[in-house]
């Protein structure tokens, strides 16, 4: 096996993340504890990584809290070692999947079927990884392999793929790309595998000084897509990338933002991961906990979740929450007479045991409706 196999991955990573490294020969065999390729330890101010039984790399200027990056680099070295030994031919893009899966693991969540394909946009990544072909010239994927790292946000754009009666209404990516690039040049990273029923593309959006501006800009982008490409699109965005090390989190949170929408009663067409922090907590809970919550919350009620609620309950709850539980204001918002609204609230109380004029009860029913929706989607996904 060539001794040089680690140079390429280490070089790429050092360029991407701005660290320096020194390959060091260790004359005595490394402590068995650290003999695994890709194993890490700290030596003074430096992080060191095992390359094989006789060589290590010492890194300087490497983020101390970069557990994800360390794991990712380990994984990369595993791949490169495997390839050098002629054992593995895994795609370079699996690195992304690895990152995200790792993070999902930390959050107690399984990566969903939507997530892995997104991150397996293999050809472009592999080309860049192997230094072949054109590779990406701009955007975050390219910046992993170049010293110049842009700052910004991943934006995941979805538009519905619809099949009519014998008529395919799928919209070609090209039409969208033209409009997207006309609105904000150099943002299109390329199409990615989409959740069922959608087409998707990943965008790289320049960093905005005030995060509140981003939904507004994206809403305008969706407006021009409707006006000129005649396409109804939706967008999610995650955390910003200010330093290279934040990418995995940025990409992951962009994907999770799409999943968050399921929890919302009427999701807006632009949704950011951090817009409702409570949802992050719900997302992190395992399904068994959600089911158990639902069971407990509805123990004494005559409903099994929002699936069997009349439509007017949903609007009543939404209206009351929008009015900060002020019944008169909610009646005004819902264009109902106050007495009509009071009747509805009473009917909800009779059937569920929750009086949604009180914060705790309203919050409980909001959770019940969000969790029922989420579990309903899971059940749909699980169908063969």
């Amino acid at each position, binding site marked *: 096996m060539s001794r040089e196999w680690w140079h390429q991955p280490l070089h790429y990573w050092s360029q991407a993340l701005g660290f320096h490294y020194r390959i060091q020969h260790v004359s005595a065999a490394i402590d068995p504890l650290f003999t695994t390729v890709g194993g890490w330890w700290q030596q003074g101010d430096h992080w060191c990584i095992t390359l094989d039984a006789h060589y290590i790399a010492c890194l300087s200027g490497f983020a101390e809290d970069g557990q994800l990056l360390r794991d990712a680099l380990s994984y990369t070295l595993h791949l490169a070692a495997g390839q050098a030994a002629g054992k593995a031919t895994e795609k370079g893009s699996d690195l992304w999947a690895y990152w995200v899966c790792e993070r999902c693991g930390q959050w107690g969540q399984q990566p969903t079927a939507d997530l892995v394909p997104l991150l397996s946009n293999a050809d472009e990544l592999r080309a860049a990884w192997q230094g072949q072909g054109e590779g990406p010239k701009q955007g975050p994927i390219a910046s992993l392999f170049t010293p110049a790292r842009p700052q910004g946000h991943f934006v995941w754009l979805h538009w519905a793929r*619809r099949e*009519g009666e014998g008529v395919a209404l799928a919209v070609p990516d090209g039409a969208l790309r033209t409009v997207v690039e*006309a609105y904000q040049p150099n943002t299109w990273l390329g199409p990615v595998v989409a959740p069922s029923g959608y087409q998707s593309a990943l965008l790289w959006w320049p960093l905005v000084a005030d995060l509140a501006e981003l939904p507004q800009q994206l809403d305008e982008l969706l407006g021009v897509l409707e*006006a000129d490409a005649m396409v109804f699109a939706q967008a999610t965005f995650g955390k910003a990338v200010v330093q290279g090390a934040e990418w995995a989190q940025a990409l992951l949170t962009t994907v999770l933002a799409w999943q968050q929408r399921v929890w919302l009663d009427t999701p807006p067409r632009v949704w950011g991961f951090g817009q409702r922090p409570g949802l992050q907590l719900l997302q992190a809970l395992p399904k068994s906990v959600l089911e158990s919550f639902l069971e407990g919350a509805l123990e004494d009620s005559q409903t099994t979740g929002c699936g069997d609620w009349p*439509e007017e309950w949903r609007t009543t709850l939404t209206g009351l929450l929008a009015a900060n539980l002020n019944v008169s204001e909610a009646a005004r918002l819902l264009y109902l007479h106050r007495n009509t609204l009071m009747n509805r609230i009473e009917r909800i109380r009779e059937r569920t045991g929750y009086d949604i004029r009180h914060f705790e009860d309203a919050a409980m029913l909001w959770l019940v409706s969000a969790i029922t929706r989420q579990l309903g989607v899971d059940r749909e996904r699980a169908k063969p």
Partner: protein
Amino acid sequence: MARVQLVNIAKRYSGDVLAVNDFNLDVADKEFVVFVGPSGCGKTTTLRMIAGLEDITDGDLFIGDRRVNDVAPKDRDIAMVFQNYALYPHMTVYQNMAFGLKLRKMPKTDIDKRVRDAAQILDIVHLLDRKPKALSGGQRQRVALGRAIVREPKVFLMDEPLSNLDAKLRVQMRAEIRKLHQRIQTTVIYVTHDQTEAMTMGDRIVVMKDGLIQQVATPQEVYTNPTNLFVAGFIGSPAMNFLRGELVEEAAVLRFRAADVDIRIPEGRYPALRQAGVVGKAVVLGVRPEDLHNDELFLSTYPEAEIELSVEVVENMGPEIYVHSSVGGQNMVARVPARYDLRPGSRAKLALDMNKVHIFDGETEAAIPHHIAEAIASR
């Protein structure tokens, strides 16, 4: 030919949320129809189904003679105008207006002619070289309109296009859109939550609530003959006053009774009220603020339609005043000439114009027609 027909249209989202149900409407060629209703009533969803931006769950949609349910939006020959203008920030006004045509690979000379013609119509020729950032809200909205006009579509779909403008500009722009419609003679379907916009712009208004059409009629008809309590309360500003009470019969005379209110119902309305089966039942009496009068002539003409109010707030609007008051615990607003000296804390006698009073079934909230003939017609 740009007649638009919606036949039994429904939209159901996943989770069985019914956004629009059993929507039937026939929009005539060159007609200006306004969908109006509170947020969440399904008006925008309906517009987007017409555009093809949302799937139709059930029903048939025709533009001209063609069923377009499964026709891609770009092939429906429509143009949309949105609240957020949807302009390209890096392009000039000219480029913004031309871009959609460029995408359709139209020859440059044709594009130039269309853009300049539209700019002329909208009076924005002098803005063609500017970028959106250098334009006011009203100018941006004109550019957005221009971008739709250059397409020369069969149907314009406008989704709250004036909502981002300040009140003064909104008044100006709604007149301009109306003029524009008269000039270009194209079918327009316009969505708004603002009942004043609906009243002033539409040839016909479609009032919606909870995904259902409540009434389709001319603005005047909707105002004077609302079909139910919701329409009556939604259209008109200040809103119609509602008094909840009971319709009782005493010695062959029908009277409306509520706390501190006892009003004799005109005999001409008896047959319709009897037919509706509301005698002896809870009803809602509706009266518009301008149909409450405090001049002597009225008070003497309708002595049995008089109510005594406690004046709470008086809003001076210049030629008239809005008198906010209450009777028997129910709120009322009267719109009377400013010459009357009504002050907060005082009591005032007002008479209802009984020819214009509306009566609604207390349970179904449907309007009881004034006459039997209307009752039959409304079935």
